[in-house]
Each structure stands twice: as C-alpha cells, then as structure tokens.
C-alpha cells in the first residue's frame, strides 16, 4: 500500500510552506525574521513550480527555468533587504517592526 508521490502531495507541501511563511510575516516582530519568512514563501513557490514542471509539462523545463530565476531574484532581494535593515538599525537602534510607525495617518 505504498502510495506514489503525486503532484497533489507537492502542492500541499508548498501550500503548507507558504502558510508558515505567511504566518511568520504577520506574527514575527523582528525585521530579519520577516525577511526570512518572505524567503520561505518564495521557496514554497519554487517547490510548486518544479513539481508542476515535472508532472504537467515533463518535456519542457519552463517550471524549473522559472524556479532558477526566482532563486536569483530572491537572493538580490535579501541582499537589499539586509542592507536596509542595517541602515534602519543604525538609525533607530531597534529592529522591532512596531517601532517604525512614524509615517502614519
């Protein structure tokens, strides 16, 4: 009764991962943690893409190609994100997101 791994398993995994990432973004107070969670969400998308590419369009590699692009861009984004977090730390001596509410109403 061994069940072969089908596409839905991957989809469920990526959805779960996406959910965790989303929870992290909404709940965590630390800026870096939020940044990591966004990366988590992006990786969830990668899983999704690669799985679809294997099961739905095995001949073409569009999904995997897309995943590579996502990874590269995610890297760029993290680079810039960390730079900003350092800048804001140097400025406000805190990374707690709740402190950054000067711009409101």
């Amino acid at each position, binding site marked *: 009764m061994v069940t072969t791994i089908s*596409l839905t398993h991957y*989809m469920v995994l990526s959805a779960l991962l*996406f959910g965790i*990432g989303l929870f992290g*973004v909404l709940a965590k107070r630390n*800026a870096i943690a*939020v*940044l990591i969670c*966004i990366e988590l*969400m*992006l990786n*969830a*998308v990668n899983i*999704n*893409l690669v799985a*679809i590419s294997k099961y*739905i*369009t095995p001949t073409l590699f*569009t*999904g995997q*190609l*897309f995943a590579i*692009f*996502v990874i590269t*861009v995610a890297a*760029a*984004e993290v680079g*810039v*994100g960390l730079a*900003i*977090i350092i*800048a*804001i730390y140097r*400025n*406000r001596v805190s990374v707690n*997101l709740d402190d*950054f509410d*000067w*711009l*409101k109403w």
Partner: protein
Amino acid sequence: MNVDLSLLAPEIAMAILGLGVLILGLLVPKGSRHGLGWVTALGLLGVLGLTISGWNNQGFLYEGLFVVDQYAIFFKITFLTAAFLVTLGCMRYVDEMGDQSEYYSMILFATLGMMVLASAGDFMTLYLGLELMTIAFIVLVCFRRTETRSVEAGIKYILLAGMSSAVLLYGLSLVYGVTGSVVISEVGQAVTTEPVPALILGVAMLVAGLGFKISAVPFHMWTPDVYEGAPTPVTSFLAVGSKAASFAILLRVFVAALPGLWAHWTMLAAILSAVTIIVGNLVAIPQTNIKRLLAYSSIAQAGYILVGLVTASEAGIKGVMFYAFLYVFATIGAFTVAAYFYNVTGSDEIKDYAGLSQRSPLMAAVMVISMLSMAGIPPLAGFVGKFYLFKTIVDNYLWLALIGLIMSMVSVYYYLRVALVMYRDEPVDNTPISLSGPVALTLIITMVATLVLGIYPGPLSEVVNTAAHSFFLH
C-alpha cells in the same frame, strides 16, 4: 532562429546608459557630479527618440516571450517621458542629496524594468521586469539613509513588496499549473469559461500581486507611507512609472491571458475600482501633508484607470492608455513643485504653501493646473481622459460612472483647499522664489502638455487608437 535585435534597441540602449552613468560616476571627481543629471536626461531623450522612430516595426522575440507591439512601444514612450521629466525637474533636489550616480543609474534601471514589463509576453519576463523595477525602487525609496522617514519607508516597501511578489508568484505558479504553459497567448487559449478552484485562487493572487503594484484599495496600505517617506522625485517616479507599468502588464494578463474568465473578473474589477475611488478620495480630504495628499489622490487615479479594465474592450484599453499618458504630466507637475518647494523651505506641510501665488506664480499655477487635471476639470487633460474612460462603462455600469464622477468632484474639494492656501493667504516671508532653468522648463512642459491635451486631444487620441488596436492584432 535569427533574433531581430532592432526590436530590443531601446532596452539595450537603456542598459548601456544605466551602466555608463554608473561607471561615469566612479570616474568623475566628487565635485562635478552635477553633470551626471544632464547626461541621464539627454540619454533618456535619445532613447525616447529611438523608441519613437521604432514605432512601426513590431514583432515577437523568443516565441512570444518578448512582445514588441505598438501597445508596448506607447507605454515605453510614457515611461521614458516620465523618467526624463523626473530627472530634469529634480536635479537640484538630487544634488542636495549627493551621490547622484547611484541615484541616476537606479532611475535608469527602474525604467528598464518598466520597459521589459511592458513588453513581457510570458510570466517569466513579467516577473523579471517586475522585480528589476521593484528592487531599483526599493533602493531609491531609502536613498536618504540618514533620514529616518526615508529608511522607514524603505523597510516597509521592501517587506511588503517582497510579500506581494511572493503572492504574485504563487498565483502565477497556480495558473501555470492549471494551464500548463507560461506564455500569455497560450494561457489565453487554455483558460476555459469553467474555472477550476485552483485557477480562481491563482487569479485572485494575481489580482492581489498586481493590485499591490497599482495600489488598488485593499492592497494600497503601503502607498501613503512610502510616498511620504521617500524623496519627492522618487515618489513622483514611483507614482507615475511603476503604476503605468503595472497597468500595462495588468491589461496584458487579464485581457490577453484570461479573457475566458472575463465574466468573473469584470464585476470584481468594477467593485475594486469603485472602492479604490471612494477610499482614495475620502481619505485624502483630512490630509495636511502635500505628499500624503498626492499619495491618496494617486490611489484615486488608480481607481479611475481601473475603470478602463472593467469592459476589457479596445475602448477600455484606449481609455487606460490615454489616461496613463496625461496622468504622467499632471503628477510630475505637482511633485516637481512639491520637490522644489521642499528644497526652498524644507517643509511639505500644506499650510506652509501660504501665499505661494505671490512668491512664485508659475509654481502655484502649475500645482493648481496639475491638481485640477487630476480632478477632471474641463479645459485640462483629466476631463478628456475621464470622458474616454467612463464612455466605456456607461452602458451597463452606470453606477460606477456616477460614483467616479461624483468622487472626482469631491476630490476638487481637497485640491481647492490647497489652492485656497496658495492664493488667498499672505506668505510668511514673501521673498520671491527664483526657479532654476531645468525646473522651470519641466513645469512649463507639464503645464502646456496638460492644457493642450485638454483643449485639443485629437492627435493623441489617434495615436492611442492605433496602439490599442495593435494590442489585439497578434
């Protein structure tokens, strides 16, 4: 497979210009960095000329991955004019910030991102162009590292933009999953009128991702803070360029990729646009900071442009393109005045604009004309734009037309409150503000453009007609 590079000419030129400015910044001694502004401006003018000359040669690259039709070219012209006007109008602002080379190169890369986005034929190019533009803007938003407001805007922008692009990607992957292809035209054929739940979730996420970019209401929360925090030239480019590019791709995705689901998302688009117009105008009423006011007004403008998407017909697309083009001049005019006023007085509060009409009649006039064009008062371009937009939906979405026009008249209220301060009050210190050459030139260009397009929109509407027609050709 011979790749006709002439189609890519504008993008290539833009890349070279961007890198060139970056390198030049390193070579040129710190003192004479001012020249970089002129280099960028003239470079942009050149690329603009190149794009206009390539108006007639249309075609595809890499089997539909990169579409260069007159629709894309028109949007590229919009982005390049916006970039040119922003650099020209805010040279003094940028000089005061220092390290111009990074600033100008980022502006150029952002424009490049927009151009790629406008010509994206499939989801990968879409994502690439979108991310190139967003990351360039993130750097620009927190350009004044020392000032906390700019950095706070930066952190907000990067986190929220990252999250929204994650959601967008998830949506794209789902659509890819359901239709099995990434190229927009193929997706268009694959999507049937009977949607699968996964497709609905995918489309919803697509709407959210792009909605974030054009700051439609449920996804607009970031706009006021980022617009207020960011340096004014960046805000104006963000308000114009990023919004126009997002609309370009939004139209492509929804009208070309998902026509099958038209019946479903047309009511969604109508509701989104109505809510955006209402919230954008209402929250702008109590504002006291000019940039925040213009932020909410640009949210409202996004609502008006969304009206063009509702019918997804050629007239709708024409309305969007027409309004996007004249929206460039109105917004940049207003923001350039705000930027220059910030340089002179160092404040963005509306009450400090007292007696501006006596200190500098041109600035006051441009501010009033730009604002009233956004409100849609006749002799100005906004009226014609709104006429084209609401023309498409009057038949079966009359309520949306009513809401749109009544709200645009409500918007006259907070625009005139600014005019009231500028014209009636006496200035605190009435030293006349002398305008430097390039700023005056930008202001005059925007004013004349808004007036001419308002009184004699004939030629522009011809050009936009052909462009909208080409959208459906391929």
